């Protein structure tokens, strides 16, 4: 049964894809909510299939398998081929598992939307694309999935396209991702140039022998550019906050749990290349740490419930980059998984709040929702604690693992570890701030006429399942992950946490302490009346404003990149193309006409002039004949 499940592994992609196709052509007829159930069922079935197919990896005797599906680009040796190994299996389980839950949730969340079936069509398509990405056995197929998830991200962010901000956000996400993809694409050129193949197996096996350090650095950094785009790292993270324009399940699924982790997956998958270049690894780690801190500070000052989560996601992704940059691939993947659980939970919870508040997203107009939305309150509390790294919740295990691994690397990495620690504090602070502002304190929404209510079962059930995962998932995975992933990382030298239990304990204590400090501070400040915590925020002076505005990076990009770019394009089109290039062409025609007119002027109508031309021609001819020497 397991064997045949692995043979049928293409169905993991095929099921959601079939769902998408079906919903595309017959969605309207299937209708709301059946379309949602259909999509959920498709992805759920894929989850079951994947689970069955990955049983051997759990038991520890699983062999990685390549399942060829067909030729694609013969001249490059590119096939459609599935690489079924533990890492892929793990990612598949996360994508299908969390995805199924979010699908289910979305049935409730999107209920009543006139394009309900289309939404699920896109969700299914996204799942298929994401699974293509993680199941790819070569870089081109991975790149295809990579681009396709970008497409789905675009479609889903701008799902409510009549809202100009949503449409713009979708475009921004795609374009910024494309900029990253440029790096990825050049990396692929280099890969092919160096290896004459795109297949993971041969590339990674030969990496040590065929790549020199320079090329490895180049490939690594270029891949990092791509990964930074997809995983919203500095400097390409700017699309992710805007992506919150999309429906909340989209934010949860794509912009928290799955798609954005593709960059981490890519770096982890390509560890065999990265490890050839300490330099590239270092850059990955530094970028990760910087992003973690940078985004965390911005998250501090956000007032939009989803934007807090968005910056939090960026920050957590930074953690993962820090981990894989420090060669802690397993730690990175671990955090990827736990983050998927609790961040999906948080997003869905936020969505539940938004749903309950009929669209309100400003935390300053919330407060005291605990009574009205008990399930959401509880699950969000778990999520908040998890992300704050409180033991024994999932976040604690993975974050602790990352910090430990980084610390163990020593040297520069200790500084990065410190950054991580600060970030842990900040994370705890802003998450608690959010939680308190939303659920505790006095309601600040009564004058707006909202009537908060708990969400329907179809939404709360996924919340509860995710909460359970956020509680127990960490420890469970912690126990088996390393050996589970062993076959996938056998080509790379992993960094490990310190073996000294005392050091481990100390590190854990520090990170938990940082978390507790953050929780405590935030709880203390934001339990008070709005005027007081507003005063607290003002106390930071201009810094708070910078954080609130995300360091005005969008404005800076607008002024430094977009505006000059547009100006340059306009100059090219209207100052170069029309007047210069086309002008040159037309002036050739104009010159011909000028000549023509001058001949016309010679044609005076006076016959004696004509005679003169005749004689002139004759004379010139004779002179020429004489000169050339009779």
């Amino acid at each position, binding site marked *: 049964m397991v064997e045949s499940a692995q043979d049928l592994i293409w169905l993991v992609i095929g099921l959601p894809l079939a769902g998408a196709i079906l919903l595309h052509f017959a969605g309207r007829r299937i209708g709301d909510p059946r379309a949602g159930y259909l999509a959920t069922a498709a992805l759920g079935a894929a989850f079951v299939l994947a689970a069955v197919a990955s049983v051997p990896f759990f038991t520890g005797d699983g062999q990685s398998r390549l399942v060829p599906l067909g030729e694609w680009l013969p001249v490059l040796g590119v096939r459609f081929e599935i690489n079924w190994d533990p890492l892929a299996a793990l990612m598949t389980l996360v994508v299908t598992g969390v995805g199924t839950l979010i699908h289910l949730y979305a049935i409730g969340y999107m209920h009543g939307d006139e394009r309900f079936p289309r939404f699920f069509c896109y969700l299914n398509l996204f799942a298929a694309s994401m699974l293509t990405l993680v199941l790819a056995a070569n870089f081109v197929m991975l790149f295809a999935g990579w681009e396709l998830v970008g497409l789905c991200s675009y479609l889903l962010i701008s799902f409510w396209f009549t809202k100009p901000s949503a449409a713009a956000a979708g475009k921004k996400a795609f374009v910024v991702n494309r900029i990253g993809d440029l790096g990825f694409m050049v990396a692929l050129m280099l890969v092919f140039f160096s290896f004459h193949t795109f297949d993971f197996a041969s590339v990674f096996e030969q990496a040590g022998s065929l790549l020199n350090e320079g090329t490895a650095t180049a490939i690594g950094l270029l891949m990092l550019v791509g990964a930074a785009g997809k995983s919203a790292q500095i400097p390409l993270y700017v699309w992710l906050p805007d992506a919150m324009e999309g429906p909340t399940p989209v934010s949860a699924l794509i912009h928290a749990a799955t798609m954005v982790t593709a960059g981490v997956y890519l770096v982890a998958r390509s560890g065999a290349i990265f490890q050839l270049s300490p330099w590239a690894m270092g850059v990955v780690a530094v970028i990760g740490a910087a992003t973690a801190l940078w985004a965390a500070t911005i998250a501090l000052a956000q007032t939009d419930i989803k934007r807090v989560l968005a910056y939090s996601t960026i920050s957590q992704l930074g953690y993962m980059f820090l981990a894989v940059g420090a060669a802690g691939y397993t730690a990175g993947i671990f955090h990827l998984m736990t983050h998927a659980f609790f961040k999906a939970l948080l997003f869905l919870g936020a969505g539940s709040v938004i749903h309950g508040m009929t669209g309100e997203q400003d935390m300053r107009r919330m407060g005291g929702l605990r009574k009205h939305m008990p399930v959401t309150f509880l699950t969000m509390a778990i999520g908040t604690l998890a992300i704050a790294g409180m033991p024994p919740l999932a976040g604690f295990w993975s974050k602790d693992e990352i910090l430990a691994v980084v610390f163990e690397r020593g040297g520069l990495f200790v500084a990065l570890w410190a950054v991580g620690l600060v970030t842990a504090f900040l994370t705890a602070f802003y998450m608690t701030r959010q939680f308190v502002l939303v659920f505790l304190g006095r309601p600040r929404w009564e004058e707006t006429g909202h009537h908060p209510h708990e969400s329907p079962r179809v939404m709360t059930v996924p919340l509860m399942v995710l909460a359970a995962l956020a509680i127990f998932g960490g420890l469970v995975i912690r126990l088996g992950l390393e050996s589970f992933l062993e076959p996938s990382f056998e080509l790379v030298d992993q960094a490990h946490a310190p073996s000294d239990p005392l050091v481990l304990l100390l590190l854990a204590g520090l990170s938990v302490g940082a978390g507790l400090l953050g929780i405590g501070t935030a709880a203390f400040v934001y339990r008070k009346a709005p005027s007081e915590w507003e005063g607290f925020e003002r106390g930071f002076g201009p810094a708070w404003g910078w954080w609130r505005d995300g360091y005005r990076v969008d404005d800076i990009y607008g002024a430094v990149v977009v505006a000059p770019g547009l100006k340059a394009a306009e100059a090219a089109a209207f100052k170069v193309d029309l007047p210069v290039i086309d002008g040159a062409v037309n002036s050739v025609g104009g010159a011909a*006409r000028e000549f023509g007119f001058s001949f016309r002027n010679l044609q005076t109508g006076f016959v004696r002039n004509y005679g003169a031309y005749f004689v002139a021609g*004759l004379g010139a001819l004779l002179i020429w004949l004489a000169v050339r020497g009779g």
Partner: protein
Amino acid sequence: MTFPQIDWLAIGPELVLAVGAAAVLLLDVTLRPAFPRLGGLAAMAMAAGIGLAIWQWMAWVPAAGQPLPFGGMVVADRLASSGRLLVLVVAALGLATGWSLLAAQGRRAAEALALMLLGTAGFSLMVSTPHLVMMFLGLEIGSLSLYLLAGFSRRERRSDEAAIKYFLLGGLASAVFIYGVSLLFAGTGHLDLGGQGHLLEGTIITTPAVIILGLALVIVGLSFKVSAAPFHSWAPDVYQGAPAGFTGFLAASAKVGGFLALVRILVTAFGPMSADWEPIIAVVATLSMVIGSLGAIVQDDVRRLLAYSGVAHAGFILTGVMAGGQEAASTVWFYLAVYVVQVLGAFAVVAAVSGPESAGSPLSAYRGLSRRSPYLAATFSVLLLGMAGLPLTSGFVAKFGVFQAAWTAGFGWLVVVAVLTSVIALYLYLRVIVAMYMGEAEEDLPLPGTGSDWVPGVAVFATLLFGLLPGPLLDFASHASPL
């Protein structure tokens, strides 16, 4: 005293034309028949001439060394017979084009017909004689008839102007030509070209300066007749001022006569001196192509435009002359055959649009022609595209032949100039097409019409036929070699 060999068939076409002319004139004063009969008579004479020319072509197997008929005043080679054929076809189409114009001349129709017939005979002699004085006579017979036809209109003041300009400048050019002949005579002691290099055989001079001078003058004189730049300035004015019904005949016959005579002179007599005349022809060809193309693109009158285009075509044909030898004769003949048919067809359209006796055909009158007369617009377009040398038309084949011959002879640069100027020239043809198809007529005046609407149709048929399947005509042309 040696009597020359009298071979009436050798001058059969001219004889028929002369008899026809005489008959027309005599009948006119005696029986005074209605025009159609006189015209029919002229047409029959031309038809008979065509038949005789074809017969000559078939009968004369080119062979050097045979005594020439009439003491060397005519030559029985296939350049002559195919040249005659061309002259006669031009005449027949010219007659058809001018039919309504002739019919409107009343009593003067007979004179006009006689002028056409005799002029045709003149050009016919011109292309079939190896004797320079005879050539001059033929040239003058033809030219005088053209001067008169240019000024034939009784309504148009500008017709007179055209005639006197043509006459004075033509007289100058004729004088230059015959002066050149006299210098060649002084230099060589011969007046007949004979066969290859014959003219130069008897020469006793060591340096051919006088010959070069004479040759240059002869070339200049003939360049004038074919309206090659810089000796072209008469052409726009004359084409514009002459009665529309005669302009095609006027434009085409002078070109046929001039070019075939030029080819005969250069190829047979002066073949050995090609290094001397090639530069002259090359310069004249370049100037013609450039001036013709550039001058044409700013014209507002279709006839002036066609005149300049004719200048450019003269340049293209001269490019073919550069090939030298047999190749020059056949490519030039083919080009002429293709071009004159198109020119006559085009002027038939002009006559139909502007009125057969009109002087001037402003481009504005062609706006929206596609609606007023789809047939004329379509045929004119095809003919213009043919003149432009676009593929699928005979014009392309002709240009291609000329270019290829010139390149083979080593004048690649001239071919490059030619292809580039032909792009410039393309614009002028497009302008007319734009006016006909894309312009709106200011007022929907009925067309004057000529009743010769079939002429453009025939020209289009020939243009497309020989554009798609030029083989037979090319084969025919390949025989058009001088003795």
